[in-house]
């Protein structure tokens, strides 16, 4: 929990400092960066599609954010939490119907062609809006992108769209890909999806399946003197236990995204030359959530949902499942979010007696065997922690007389069972909070989402009040009023429990102390690493 509070404070302190003296170029570096060297990092998966404009997910960003850049990146100290990348300035119209981006001059694609506003228009209209998993929601009202000159792109929206949302969406949703590569043929089948071409500090060099990805320095990069590294190798190490030994053996220099199991961190932090870093993931908060199928008549009863919330010892989960590297959750917005979070929501203290009383009150008394009813519980298989929490939840439910039967599936089968077939009563899911509730959070409770959309409300929950609130917030342009609506949203969700938020966690990096400029922005692991350097 402490790491979240600290990081939040750092964010605030950082922005205050910069506001005070905008003349400071960057926060002073402890050492001067050196040029050259090869950074070897652990990769635990090999995404099928490496195009971040289509698949906006951390597994893809981890590799391709070095190759394909976004319009802006998240930042600890920049204005509105942003640092310019391909765009140097952005401005929203007062009526919410347009956003103007000023683009960076002199940027070249890796194949030598110049980067222009046509590329931004093409990416936004042809890829982000129709094809991207997250862009479909955020850019749904994007009608046209005007390009008055080569360095200006004006996004036109059919309905008022909050500028705050567009800003918050820039770091994850605005990967720009080259129009001249993608304009012929089907975008989904373009070979560049597996060998991306971008404007970033590194060029895609090769991928040996099952072995490694190799990225090499882009000598024509727009950043002055950047990048520092000559090469980045992503060593494929699917076995989580092996990342720790590879670090110790100096085969790799960085294991991000908690590739080293939490239980090993205590030991590995004592190994000379290795550092355990909890910073650099503030913009990628995962939420541990109990998804509820409201089609089950027992679970449609608010008393039962409240009983389940009271049965979960969130402190135990943080301490035992996450070994302290997490924070307890109060509602659908994580505590470390600087813009929207409110603590003023109904809370559910760990209280087994109260949970039992609520269930008795709801009319589900214990049978002779001490059981009230049976449930199917599907823990998501993506993280060790979601699986372990599944084991814990089964025990927590047993304590209040609910017999939960675990069903284990692989990723594909889990997604189908929960989000398409609705063959679950309770599921454990890890949705991601992406800096704005409208990007990937409201979809978890909103009704009317077609079957099969993953990480959305597939539990048959329908609450007209909440739906109206979400709709209103999506067209409220004033940031203060919009933030207030999302605070109301948090209160309503915590009161009616369409799902139960248990904990919030981020990732841990383990890195050799020869690597410089680590964790210097809130999405560091998925940022472009142009300023990362190696002590040789």
């Amino acid at each position, binding site marked *: 929990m402490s790491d979240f509070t600290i990081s939040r404070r750092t964010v605030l302190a950082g922005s205050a400092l910069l506001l005070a003296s905008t003349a400071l170029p960057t926060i002073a570096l402890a050492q001067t960066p050196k040029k050259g060297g090869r950074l070897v990092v652990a990769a635990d998966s090999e995404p099928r599609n490496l195009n971040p404009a289509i698949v906006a997910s951390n597994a893809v960003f981890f590799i391709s954010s070095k190759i394909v850049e976004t319009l802006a990146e998240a930042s600890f100290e920049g204005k509105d939490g942003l640092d310019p990348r391909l765009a140097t300035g952005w401005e929203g119209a007062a009526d919410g119907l347009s956003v103007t981006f000023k683009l960076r001059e002199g940027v070249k694609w890796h194949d030598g062609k110049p980067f222009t506003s046509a590329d931004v228009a093409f990416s936004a209209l042809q890829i982000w809006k129709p094809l991207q998993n997250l862009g479909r929601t955020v850019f749904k009202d994007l009608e046209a992108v005007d390009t008055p000159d080569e360095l200006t792109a004006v996004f036109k929206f059919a309905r008022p769209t909050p500028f705050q949302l567009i800003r918050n969406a820039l770091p994850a949703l605005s990967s720009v890909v080259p129009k001249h590569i993608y304009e012929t043929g089907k975008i989904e089948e373009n070979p560049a999806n597996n060998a991306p071409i971008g404007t970033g500090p590194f060029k895609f060099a090769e991928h040996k399946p099952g072995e490694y990805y190799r990225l090499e320095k882009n000598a024509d990069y727009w950043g002055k003197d950047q990048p520092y590294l000559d090469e980045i190798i992503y060593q494929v190490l699917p076995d989580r*236990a092996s990342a720790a030994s590879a670090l110790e053996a100096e085969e790799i220099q960085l294991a991000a995204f908690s590739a080293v*199991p939490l*239980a090993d961190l205590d*030991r590995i932090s004592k190994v000379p030359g290795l550092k355990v870093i909890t910073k650099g993931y503030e913009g990628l908060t995962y939420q541990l959530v109990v998804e509820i199928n409201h089609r089950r008549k027992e679970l449609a009863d608010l008393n039962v949902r409240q009983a389940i919330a009271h049965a979960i010892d969130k402190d135990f989960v943080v301490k035992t499942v996450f070994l302290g590297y997490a924070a307890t959750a109060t509602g659908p917005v994580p505590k470390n979010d600087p813009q929207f979070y409110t603590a003023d929501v109904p809370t559910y203290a760990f209280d087994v007696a109260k949970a039992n009383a609520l269930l008795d009150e709801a009319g589900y008394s214990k049978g002779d065997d001490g059981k009230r009813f049976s449930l199917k519980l599907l823990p998501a298989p993506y993280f060790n922690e979601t699986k372990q929490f599944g*084991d814990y939840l089964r*025990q927590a439910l047993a304590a209040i007389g609910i017999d939960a039967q675990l*069903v*284990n599936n692989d990723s594909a089968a889990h997604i189908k069972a929960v989000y398409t077939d609705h063959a679950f009563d309770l599921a454990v899911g890890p949705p991601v909070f992406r800096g704005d509730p409208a990007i990937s959070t409201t979809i978890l409770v909103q009704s009317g989402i077609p079957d099969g959309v993953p990480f959305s409300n597939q539990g048959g929950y329908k609450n007209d009040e909440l739906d109206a609130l979400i709709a209103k917030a999506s067209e409220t342009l004033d940031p203060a009023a919009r933030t207030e609506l999302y605070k109301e949203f948090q209160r309503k969700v915590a009161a009616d429990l369409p799902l139960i938020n248990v904990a919030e966690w981020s990732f841990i990096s383990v890195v050799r102390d020869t690597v410089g400029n680590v964790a210097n922005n809130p999405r560091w692991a998925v940022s472009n690493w142009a300023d990362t350097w190696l002590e040789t």
Partner: protein
Amino acid sequence: MNPLRRFLRAREAVAGAIILVALFAMALTASLFFPGDPQAIAGPALLPPFQDWSLPLGTDRLGRDVMAELFHGAGTSLVVGLAAAAAALAVGAIVGTLAGFAGGLVDEVLMRITDAFQTVPSFLLALAFVSIVGPSLGVVVTAIALGAWTGPARVARAEVLSIRERDFVAGARVIGMHPLEIAFREVLPNALPPVLALSSVIVAAAILTEAALSFLGLGDPNRVTWGGMIAEGRAVLRTAPFLSIIPGVALVLTVLGVYLAGEGVVETTAVRRSLS
């Protein structure tokens, strides 16, 4: 010399038998010593063994009692091992007897099916079956039996081929017994001993396969299994190796015990047969 005494003379066999008896004792007394759910959280997480005598073997990452899990896991291993072996032997014996006794087209068809099953590695077959049907105890048993029945089938067929030429079979034919009756009442019982000799290997292999499936997360998640315990412990192998070592040792001893005891029985009976 009676068979029991001969069995008791072989030291390996006795060691195997002792292990097996201990294992059965563990499985049978599990709910006596550790009533309730063995997966209930019993204490602080990651307690090392021999620290707290109410939790003699320590606790796992969630604070579950390793000793209780070990006892309950013994039951799962034995049930799966014995049930899978019984199913494999039954299917194998019937298929082998039918093929050997009927001969001709029936033999051809049955043996080609056996060949087909034999060409697929039995573990892959089990893996595929469980991941399609979904993990539960019955499915795991079926999956293991699916890959194990071919050995008994081939042995039974070979044995039946020689037995069906014996005089007593001809005699049975002459008195007008139905061929199926001859096959299963006269021939099969005589063909069984060498088939049963395979049982110890099959039980041992079945226990290992179950552990491997659970290790890969394809065991029944609502049941404690040793393979599942090893898999759970793998994430903390460097900091709490006992979580993997304890069920691992239990698994090794069990397989060894089954094998040694089985060998002992086979040798004893083999000597008896050759003496008679």
